[in-house]
């Protein structure tokens, strides 16, 4: 009896969690103009609309531009900071770390208002650079978390071994530390890109009509005039993020395995 309740509950919640994601996907291929079931016939009509209609196509291109820009900014800055905080020689490292992770915590709307006021003063409101910077602020924490975890997994004795064998610090960094940290950097970059791809609220505040991203375009489409293009865009985003997520998981798994190989006693 108890067992049956457990199983039913578990299945019910799994359905609750997964049903929405799976419910939206087939609608990307509906032939109807309404975004609901039953699907009268399957067609590529809305996929076509997504890739040819001006607003949607520009928004996809914008998402790629802004996502790449924010990823580059966040990955470079975040990786440098993680390396700097690693040695433990800096005073107040805990405070710094908290500061760098704060953008995850501050409500997006609050940051959005401040960012809007600030970028208007700077003359960067409604520019690509402004949106890229705003996104980079949100992406940096993800890079720092990921790279710091990778650096923590490196056994210091390997680096000590390298320098005891005569390698100067730069060589140790280039030949030992960096190759071991690269999976963390790449998965940090992936997290950063995915964050930028999905960001709406900041974009709402700082982007002009020319910087509309895909997520932003979906937001206004759902709000004003929902049609199956939204489902087609959703499919695109799901495939995109799942590919990115799969890549990140693969990297993490490889990182874990290499950590196991190099330091079996540490795990």
């Amino acid at each position: 009896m108890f067992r049956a309740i457990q199983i039913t509950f578990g299945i019910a919640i799994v359905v609750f969690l997964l049903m929405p994601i799976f419910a939206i996907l087939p609608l990307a291929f509906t032939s109807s103009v309404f975004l609901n079931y039953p699907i009268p016939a399957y067609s590529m009509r809305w996929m076509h609309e997504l890739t040819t209609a001006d607003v949607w196509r520009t928004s996809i291109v914008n998402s790629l531009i802004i996502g790449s820009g924010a990823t580059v900014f966040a990955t470079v800055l975040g990786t440098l900071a993680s390396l700097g905080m690693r040695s433990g020689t800096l005073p107040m490292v805990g405070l710094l770390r908290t500061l760098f992770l704060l953008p995850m915590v501050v409500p997006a709307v609050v940051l959005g208002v401040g960012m809007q006021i600030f970028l208007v003063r700077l003359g960067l409101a409604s520019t690509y650079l402004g949106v890229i910077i705003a996104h980079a602020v949100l992406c940096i924490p993800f890079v720092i978390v990921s790279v710091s975890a990778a650096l923590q997994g490196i056994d210091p004795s390997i680096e000590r071994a390298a320098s005891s064998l005569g390698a100067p610090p730069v060589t140790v960094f280039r030949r030992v530390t960096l190759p071991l940290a690269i999976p963390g950097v790449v998965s940090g970059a992936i997290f950063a890109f995915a964050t930028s791809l999905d960001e709406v609220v900041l974009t709402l505040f700082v982007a002009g009509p020319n910087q509309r991203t895909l997520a932003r375009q979906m937001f206004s489409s759902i709000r004003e005039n929902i049609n199956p293009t939204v489902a087609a865009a959703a499919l695109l985003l799901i495939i995109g993020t799942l590919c990115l997520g799969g890549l990140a998981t693969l990297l993490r798994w490889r990182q874990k395995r290499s950590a196991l190989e190099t330091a079996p006693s540490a795990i």
Partner: protein
Amino acid sequence: MKAGVLRERSGALLLVLPVLVFMAVFFLWPLWAMVTAAFVDDAVSKVLPRTAASIVSWNGQGVPSEAAHKALVQDLRAATDEQALGEAVRRLNSAASGFRTLLGRTIPAVKAASDPAQVDLLAIDPRWKDTRFWMALKEAMPPYTDRNILAAVDMKRDASGSIVLEAADASAHRLIMLRTLLVAAMVTIACAVIGLPYAMLAASLTGWKRSVLLLAVVLPLWTSLLVRTAAWFILLQNEGLINRALQAIGLIDSPLPLIFNRLGVVIAMTHVLLPFMVLPIYSVILGIPRNLMSAAQSMGAGPVRAFWRVLLPLSLPGLLSGSLLVFMVAIGYYITPALLGGANDQMISSVIAFYATGTANWGLAGALGLMLLGVTTVLYTIYGRFSTSPQVPGA
């Protein structure tokens, strides 16, 4: 040795410095800009500095002195920055309606006059006799104001300067704050009620069953928030899957109202935030030694008693940090209520967004944002105390 440490430290500092500068400029400064926007009120005094100096001595009785008139004329003639002037006019018009048309007539006339000493404001527009406009001008002069922060809690200063409640129908910020807390609490409770047993179930299973349960939590986390919100839109609408299914099995005759109301918002937000509840509880339960439950049972406790006295108390830290996290994220939520809620389900974030992007009233947006930021900071500090790793899980 000491020089080595010093060099290492300066090297580390050099690596951290770029992010530190970037975050100071593009994260802390914007937040500071928002806070100051709530308190700084210099739009008028910047454009009309002479008037500001001259009107201080006016006691509010009758029309101000000739000197104040002269100062205003001089200021208006000197005002060449159209944007700053527009800001000032907007600020004055919000304090005393009619100011826009009054200045709209006055400014061209003053600028066209050949001799500023001969300009008579009363001749240009008789409304300059009205002390209401002069009062608004005087009140707009101090560079700092508590107007926004008072308005954020539905209060204002009356004519004598004492703080009074805003008329009940004029402003609804308190109501919206209460609603924000209420919706966040409902979502937190829903997440706790579902998340606690779910995490326990996942921890008690092994093999593929556990993997399926965990995957179901992580997969939505990886899916775009917009996609999930759009998906709930599809499911909850009147012709949506849920209503269709319920009608098909004959449970209801007409569609249940599931969207554009509180229920839809709570359902969708629970779905979005459930992983933040399940993951902390799950990791806490995994840390509980498995033999504790069997030890309790071997000492004569029934399964219910063992659960109630052993497993539940030990998993409470996870429940607590999960609840804090869900509540903290929920009070700042914008997208889901904006898309799935009706007019009566909008939370504080929507109001902030409305003031900032809709009416460019950054002062009030800043004041409300400051409150939201304050509550979030307090919750995050508590969360940091309770949780060993002060990071958002699943990040």
